[in-house]
């Protein structure tokens, strides 16, 4: 029984990583109905930037963390204004292909600048086990959970309590009406991309201490993040977190209790995506249909 509980706990921890990247995906999907395939690669790129800040500029983790978030925000805004804006009004599949182009560019750029040798990454939390009534938790995992919950809270406050957050919601749902109210819809989209890039960067900086840092590290995480977003409801931030944790736990159990499960985790992720999309496309917390005006 404890072994099972242990797996669940470790699953929740990895699930938080998936949840954080899923949050970034949800942000962009809400802003413009687009599944950003490049989200993971952008996050990897940001994580490498933080790596350089720590290793070459000798910053401590948390200052590097904050600076990277700011830089990633700027990067996200720049990408939207320069790469995405020319495609305004084009069909979503065209944009999808553009994000795949971004995927390839970022992946190549990361490899070009930092190389493909695996690197160790010292994170913000020490990897120290703590005992909690018979179960072992890692300080790092608690830290990850904490960061993800704080992020979720901040996003919630931003969207429900601030003028910019409200304007973003209005602009993504009702761009034409919002323009008539003086909202610069294009910049709202840029803001959305900036936020998503920052959230993605956090996700990368949380996962890099756990697995080695290399240009391809986020690809399988992206798959699980998509699974989490789809399961939770691709427009729901809360759904992303719930979905992420669920997927994390599911994968931990698959890895332990199904023979050869470790290899097949990605395949299970695929199955989750397909089953959810076929059976209940809106996911757990999503809305069935959205009208745009």
């Amino acid at each position: 029984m404890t072994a099972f509980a242990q797996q669940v706990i470790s699953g929740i921890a990895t699930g938080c990583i998936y949840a954080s990247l899923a949050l970034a995906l949800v942000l962009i999907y809400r802003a413009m109905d687009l599944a950003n395939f490049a989200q993971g690669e952008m996050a990897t790129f940001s994580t490498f930037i933080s790596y350089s800040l720590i290793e070459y500029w000798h910053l401590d983790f948390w200052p590097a963390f904050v600076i990277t978030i700011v830089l990633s925000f700027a990067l996200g805004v720049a990408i939207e204004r320069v790469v995405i804006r020319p495609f305004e009004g084009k069909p979503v599949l065209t944009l999808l292909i553009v994000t795949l182009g971004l995927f390839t560019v970022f992946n190549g750029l990361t490899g070009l600048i930092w190389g493909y040798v695996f690197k160790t990454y010292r994170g913000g939390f020490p990897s120290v086990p703590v005992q909690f009534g018979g179960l072992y938790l890692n300080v790092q995992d608690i830290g990850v959970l904490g960061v993800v919950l704080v992020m979720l809270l901040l996003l919630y406050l931003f969207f429900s309590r601030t003028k910019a957050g409200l304007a973003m919601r209005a602009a993504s749902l009702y761009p034409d009406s919002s323009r008539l109210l003086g909202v610069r819809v294009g910049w709202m989209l840029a803001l959305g991309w900036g936020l998503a890039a920052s959230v993605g960067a956090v996700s990368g900086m949380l996962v890099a201490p756990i697995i080695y840092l290399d240009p391809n590290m986020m690809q399988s995480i992206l798959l699980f993040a998509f699974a989490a977003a789809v399961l939770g409801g691709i427009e729901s931030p809360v759904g992303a977190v719930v979905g992420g944790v669920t997927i994390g736990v599911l994968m931990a159990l698959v890895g332990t209790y199904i023979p050869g499960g470790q290899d097949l985790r990605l395949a299970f992720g695929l199955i989750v995506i397909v089953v959810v999309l076929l059976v209940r496309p809106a996911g757990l917390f999503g809305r069935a249909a959205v009208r745009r005006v």
Partner: protein
Amino acid sequence: MKRLLGVRPELLGLAVVGSIVLIGLPTVTNQFFTFEFAKVAIFVCALLGLNLLTGYSGQISLGNGAFMAVGGYTTAILVHAIGVPYWLTIPLAAVVAGAAGLLIGIPALRLSGVYLALATFALALSIPPILNHFDTFTGGHGGIVMPPVMAPFGLDLSQEQWLYYLCTGIAILLFAFAWGVVRSRTGRAFMAIRDSETAATASGVSLAYYKTLAFGLSAAYAGVAGSLLAIVTSFINPDSFGLGLSLTLLVGVVIGGLGLNFGAVPGGLLVVWLPYFAEKAGEAGLHIGSLSFAGKPDIFFGAALILIMLFAPNGAAGLLVRGWRWYLSFRTATRLPVAGPVAGR
């Protein structure tokens, strides 16, 4: 201007020149280049298939690398474990991969656009681990080694030359078949579905039948490509069939030209030769600061993809068609409209 065999003389001339180039190529290039052109032919096969699926029937697939894997492993296993002659495994690979495609096509019926892209993306990512896992069949990480292929009937051809002719010949056959499909009722059904599923259904086109068929055909083509890849490299392992391959296919079909069969040719050329030129450029000293571009074609692929979508959404083939039309209007200014290369060929 008279038309011979119902085709404009310019096109006929192009065809003759093209044939001479295709047939004569291996005699003037070295082994390495011949081998690379064989790979171009292989990718042309895969791209033709992906084009039928994404370009003509409008179903985006980021996972055709998986079907190449099916074809490749079918060939490798049959040759290695049972000793089937390699050339016989090619049509078998097509059948097996095609069946896999039909199977995948069924759940894909209910997914569209972004969601289909997502599901096929997940498929592409999950294939290498699955292949690694079932290592009793697939030889796992170490892969399967196959006996090298020699020119048959004692023809005086080097290995590379024979492989080149094999792949090019098959590519031409597959091209002709794709051309036929597009001009048939099936092709029209595909395009109707791509342009508007509602209108297609209203016109009596069975979405289920044609959409699944498109997946099956596309997979069969990819299966042939995978099989040829295994034959040509005499080796196969799971790592060759990961996400990178599927993305490469997508890049090739988009830049080559979605919705135009002969887009597979510029697409195939790009996909095989760009990495080579990127490598050469890196060696020649093209760099940003201390970072060399050697061996890093991805950035060019990605940038080219974005630029093409912005400036020439119909890809290289689309540009060629436009150029041809401009040439026609130039040449036949006082004549009635000519039925030139219409989109869809």
